[in-house]
């Protein structure tokens, strides 16, 4: 039984600088409750919205990246419903059927599904640019049972993209891949940092052949997209296999218990009294398209194509593209190396792996060395100067510790310092030396080991030690 999945992804434009219609911060994280508020985002009477230019440009860039039809004018619409975190009791959004015009209609996203390394395609129904509501906390339990609600309006008015797909997604795993790829695309635009807490939320609807469509709300991470849909898929399949009926309903994802639960109170027939917002004349898109286009110039897809075009395997290219600083480094350094595949491996596998091991984020550019360092390292590796173990075990961890360090300081020690230690070891282990001289070649391995041990944590290339020992002991 193959499921049919459609997604509604809400992504905050954390990179928009200010809220959508006022000067309060778009990134409110770490601020005490209700300290990022002004008359506009509290909806005080007489306070008027003025659209944030950067948010509009980013929304248009998203529409371009998703190959949408973009209207000549964006028309904002009021959508009414009473809710404690919605200070005006209407949300400013877009709605085409009430004289509004969404930022995007009929787009498409081709996304990479790492399970099998295939490209998939999902149609985008529309994208709305709208206000995020405030944040509600239900101290006495859950949304369905709490006696009271505590509201923080810091989030109220943060620019939000609502991206709605057609039901084109074939599996829970693919749904996760879609969301990851979508977020990456928006990150490349500079619109969102998806790693910020609460930067995106997903509602998913899923149906199986013979069953009704079920909507799952409140999914907060890409991993949970897969988990929630997997859970829902199994739940529905079980019902159908037992001859039961899957009713059309809305369910709530409980990330803690890892299960979906029916939203107990029946959703009222949606009636939102849509009306074009009389405070907001249309925003003409044409004058902004050039600016938006510049933001879409480096898309993940374009980079993937370029990198794999250098002969880099898709998995490695994907790993690089997922960390934007790695992708920039690759593009900057690729012209300075003979074999870009070596560079790609250093960046996408070795260095990124070392960052993970060291508990450092691959998305922070300051955790990566300059392009020149990486290019020189790649050339040394190409020339066989250092074996892979030395690169992985010594050089890269050194750079991870201090990305700005010059390459020399992290390269393994060469002969000079070594010679003294080699002589020391020859004096200290006369029996091993004798064994070696009498033809027991494995005694040399023992001596190499002793040299390395005496060097302690200092970087060294074992081949170099072996060469020095052989030289001292006269060939063997």
């Amino acid at each position: 039984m193959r499921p049919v999945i459609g997604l509604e992804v809400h992504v905050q434009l954390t990179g928009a600088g200010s809220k959508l219609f006022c000067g309060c911060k778009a990134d409110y994280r770490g601020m005490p409750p209700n300290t990022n508020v002004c008359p506009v985002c509290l909806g005080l009477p007489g306070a008027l919205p003025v659209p944030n230019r950067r948010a509009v440009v980013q929304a248009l860039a998203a529409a371009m990246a998703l190959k949408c039809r973009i209207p000549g004018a964006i028309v904002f619409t009021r959508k009414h419903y009473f809710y404690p975190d919605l200070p005006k009791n209407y949300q400013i959004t877009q709605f085409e059927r009430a004289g509004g015009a969404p930022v995007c209609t009929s787009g498409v996203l081709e996304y990479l599904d790492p399970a099998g390394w295939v490209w998939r395609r999902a149609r985008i129904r529309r994208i709305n640019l709208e206000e995020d509501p405030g944040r509600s906390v239900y101290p006495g339990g859950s949304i369905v049972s709490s006696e009271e609600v505590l509201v923080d309006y810091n989030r109220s008015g943060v620019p939000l993209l609502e991206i709605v797909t057609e039901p084109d997604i074939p599996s829970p795993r693919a749904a996760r891949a879609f969301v990851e790829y979508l977020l990456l695309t928006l990150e490349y635009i500079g619109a969102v940092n998806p790693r910020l807490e609460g930067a995106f939320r997903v509602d998913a609807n899923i149906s199986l052949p013979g069953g009704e469509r079920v909507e799952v709300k409140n999914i907060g991470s890409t991993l949970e997209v897969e988990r929630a849909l997997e859970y829902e898929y199994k739940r529905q399949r079980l019902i159908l296999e037992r001859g039961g009926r899957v009713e059309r309903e809305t369910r709530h994802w409980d990330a803690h218990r890892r299960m979906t639960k029916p939203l107990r109170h029946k959703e009222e027939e949606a009636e939102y009294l849509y009306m074009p917002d009389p405070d907001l004349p249309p925003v003409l898109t044409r004058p902004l398209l050039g600016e938006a286009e510049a933001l879409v110039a480096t898309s993940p897809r374009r980079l993937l194509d370029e990198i794999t075009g250098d002969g880099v395997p898709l998995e490695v290219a994907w790993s690089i593209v997922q960390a934007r600083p790695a992708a920039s480094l690759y593009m900057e350094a690729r012209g300075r190396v003979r074999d870009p595949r070596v560079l790609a491996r250093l960046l996408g596998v070795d260095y990124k792996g070392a960052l993970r091991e060291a508990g450092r984020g691959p998305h922070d550019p300051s955790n990566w060395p300059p392009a020149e360092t990486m290019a020189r390292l790649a050339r040394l590796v190409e020339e066989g100067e250092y074996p892979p173990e030395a690169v992985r075990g010594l050089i890269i961890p050194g750079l991870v510790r201090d990305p700005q360090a010059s390459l020399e300081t992290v390269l393994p020690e060469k002969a000079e310092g070594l010679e003294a230690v080699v002589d020391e070891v020859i004096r200290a282990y006369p029996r091993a030396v004798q064994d070696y001289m009498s033809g027991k070649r494995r005694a040399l391995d023992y001596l190499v080991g002793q040299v390395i041990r005496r060097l302690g944590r200092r970087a060294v290339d074992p081949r170099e030690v072996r060469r020095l020992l052989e030289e001292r002991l006269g060939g063997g």
Partner: protein
Amino acid sequence: MAVEDCSKLLSKIRVLARLEVPPEDCERITEIRGFLEGVRRAGPLVEGLDPLYHVWEAESRLRDPREKGYGHVNIEDLGVETREGYVRLPWRGRL
């Protein structure tokens, strides 16, 4: 508009506007509704016209995100009940 239509309307108002209009008002509401129906008399006069008020040659100004407009508001000044900075409101009540 018949009286039962009006009571249906009143329950709609209760849900959509969170407002109780007394049934005594039905007569007036029915009259006003009849008055507003006057827009139908426009007939062919308005055929093909764009209903958007935006056609008023308007175009929205856009704001630089760094621009400061209104000062920040101290939520306590609105006289709302707060707890640890959050605005405290009733939700589902005691079940």
